[in-house]
């Protein structure tokens, strides 16, 4: 490993972290604005033109708010939990290529459009997000509060259940692309985006992804009517903001993976826009779907949620995997 590689990787990491934090801030505004329009309200419009400075105001407010914490907490785990959540969320973006093909040539250095292009590819995402469960679970455990504990139990059960369907719904893509590297997967979609042959897998991934990020209509962990705010009930100020940040960054990452894996990543029709813009456009469309669903659908009941995960999504994604494998092998035999 050369010094040049280390410096380039550090700079790229800094850019990705800053980008994700800005994306998180404006995603909250985007969500509030879109949801407001769907409900025929104007939404935030007082701070700055069109309310564009609202995220900055929210951030400052949370930053200067005094942090209260429950008395019977486990202090070490109480502080560790939000850190785990945010680190797991930020680290999973490392594998996502935002543009291509080929590398960016900057001052004589060849720089890839990703932080790292590893052979295990999307397994990195699954590995890192499976660590995110600890953040949520420890938050509930360390808070020493029944609402937090129930929220955390629900949330981790939900995340473990839907992780299976999430991972399995991606397997057909690996079969078609023949690689786990995200760059290879996008390059394999030059003529046909994988959403065309694998439409059911795309929907399975989308549903599992929404459940994995604990968003409506699967936001059982923070069901306000029963659990106050779920696992982060006892957190306030910046510590609360970290959980909030992790949730929104996870939304961005699920959308980015869907873009890269099913929607052709940086490839766009007619070649009218440069790669990064296509990528951004597709991610924003998927994020809009997230907000749209939240504004439209009521929350599911908990047993229905579990039944959906284990009895519908898991068998369906297994079937999808087998059908894809059989068709792929049959088509190869003919060719």
């Amino acid at each position, binding site marked *: 490993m050369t010094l040049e590689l280390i410096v380039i990787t550090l700079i790229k990491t800094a850019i990705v972290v800053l980008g994700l934090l800005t994306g998180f801030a404006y995603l909250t505004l985007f969500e509030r604005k879109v949801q407001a329009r769907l409900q025929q309200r104007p939404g935030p419009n007082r701070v700055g033109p069109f309310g564009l400075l609202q995220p900055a105001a929210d951030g400052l407010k949370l930053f200067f708010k005094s942090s209260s914490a429950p008395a019977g907490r486990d202090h070490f785990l109480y502080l560790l939990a939000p850190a785990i959540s945010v680190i797991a969320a930020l680290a999973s973006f490392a594998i996502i290529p935002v543009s291509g093909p080929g590398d960016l040539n900057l001052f004589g250095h060849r720089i890839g459009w990703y932080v790292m292009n590893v052979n295990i590819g999307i*397994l990195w995402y699954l590995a890192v997000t499976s660590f995110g469960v600890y953040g949520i679970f420890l938050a509930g455990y360390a808070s020493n509060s029944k609402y937090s504990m129930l929220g955390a139990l629900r949330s981790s059960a939900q995340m473990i259940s839907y992780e299976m369907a999430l991972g399995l719904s991606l397997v057909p893509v690996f079969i078609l692309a023949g690689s786990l590297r995200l760059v290879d997967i996008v390059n394999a979609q030059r003529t046909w985006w994988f959403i065309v042959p694998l439409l059911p897998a795309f929907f399975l991934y989308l549903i599992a992804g929404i459940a994995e990020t604990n968003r409506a209509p699967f936001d059982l962990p923070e069901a306000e009517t029963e659990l106050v705010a779920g696992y982060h009930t006892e957190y306030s100020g910046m510590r609360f903001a970290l959980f909030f940040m992790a949730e929104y960054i996870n939304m961005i990452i699920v959308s980015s993976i869907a873009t890269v894996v099913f929607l052709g990543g940086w490839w766009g029709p007619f070649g009218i826009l440069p790669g990064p813009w296509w990528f951004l456009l597709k991610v924003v469309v998927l994020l809009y779907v997230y907000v749209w669903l939240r504004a439209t659908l009521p929350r599911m009941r908990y047993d229905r949620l579990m039944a959906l995960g284990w009895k519908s999504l898991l068998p369906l994604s297994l079937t999808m995997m087998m059908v894809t494998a059989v068709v792929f092998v049959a088509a190869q035999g003919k060719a």
Partner: protein
Amino acid sequence: MVVAFAILAAWELVTAAGVVGFRRPIYNALSLVANMLGLAVLFLILNAQFLFAAQLIVYAGAVMVLFVFIIALLNPVSDVSLGRTGNEWIYGLVFGVIFAALLGGLLVNRGLTGRQGTATPEAISAVGNVQAVGAALYTKFLFPVEVTSVLLLIAAVGAVYLAMRRIR
């Protein structure tokens, strides 16, 4: 690389001591998670990227989450004061000696550096890490893989049977 290994080895020792040393069950379990994280990074240093991911997804992400889950659900704070019979050290001694003998046997047989196999980093990167593991598992080691999967299936069926019987 040696420095990285030294740091990781120290991390593994400290977290392993934590697994048996802490008095509160949740900290024991979390030490084990930290230990598995270190093990995964050791795999990464050895160029075994797929094992790194599998270690994190299966052990840290699924098995240990369930451990922590059960510990928090049963909330065994009351078990902390559980009395000790006083003769655990005998078992500790016996198994410690057996384990030390195994390690010693390994050292005598293989030496400190181990034996170089055919799967060098160059050979693996030529076909790809995941591809190399997959090809080995489903051709050369197909029979052990299938036997293990049947074993796991039996365990799963047994668990379901036990759970169903209690409901009736």
